[in-house]
């Protein structure tokens, strides 16, 4: 059991634990913080998988920008308002059960997948995750989606204006 394995299991455990905390913690602010922890753990996985670029972007975009945005909004609507009215127990229970079922189904599917026999994800090595490679591909094959995504941003921007702007 090398260092990578230990890291892998540690990060996985952390991610799952943090994710659970996101779901169960009462205070929205806490769940935001726990979510950030999840992101860090996932970035850790990226680094393990030697996808540095994504690791960084993940931290910057998610943990940095998006989560801050979330925090702003939560602050904007005073935090203790986050003490949401309890959903009825039944709903919660049903939710958990359903989620569990989904998990079981997915796992079982994967387990019964014969074509995944001893396939591994290459750790530490493999330089496809490095920027120079990604950049090359992005601006060659992926030029069109890259450009198209600008439309997405435009519409998001317009939308934010239309919705968010106070009259």
């Amino acid at each position, binding site marked *: 059991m090398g260092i990578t394995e230990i890291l892998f299991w540690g990060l996985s455990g952390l991610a799952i634990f943090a994710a659970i905390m*996101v779901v169960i913690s009462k205070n929205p602010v806490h769940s935001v913080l726990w979510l950030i922890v999840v992101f860090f753990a996932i970035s850790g996985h990226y680094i393990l998988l030697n996808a540095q670029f994504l690791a960084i972007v993940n931290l910057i975009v998610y943990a940095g920008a998006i989560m801050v945005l979330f925090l702003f*909004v939560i602050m904007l609507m005073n935090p203790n308002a986050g003490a*949401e009215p309890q959903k009825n127990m039944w709903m919660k229970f049903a*939710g958990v059960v359903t989620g569990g079922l*989904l*998990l079981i189904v997915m796992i079982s599917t994967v387990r019964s997948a014969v074509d995944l026999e001893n396939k591994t*994800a290459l750790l530490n090595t493999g330089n*496809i995750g490095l920027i120079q490679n990604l950049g090359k591909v992005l601006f060659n094959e992926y030029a069109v989606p890259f450009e198209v995504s600008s439309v997405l941003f435009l519409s*998001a921007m317009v939308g934010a204006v239309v919705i*968010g702007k106070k009259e």
Partner: protein
Amino acid sequence: MLIQYYIALASALFCIGVVGVLTRSNAIIVFMCIELMLNAVNLLLVAFSKMHFALAQTANAATTAGTDAQLFVFFIMVVAAAEVSVGLAIIVMMYRNVHSADINFLNRLKN
């Protein structure tokens, strides 16, 4: 590392996100759980990319197989960011009108 582990991990995170969506009623937290789901997917994609890279590498050393998955992750992040901006805007709009971020607070549309 066996790919099944990654799949299992991603599925777990994904399902936790789903559970959150189902159990919480604060719009923001629900939305956060959705983000969680997206991240699970991202992780899975990266893992797969490395898997396919590994497979392809046995054939020829200089392969760049699996790059597209990582780029896809990149795009997911992009889209996620855009979605967040719109989503939060909507939530804020609702908050302005009803001073609550509870998804069940407004329940005029039914049946």
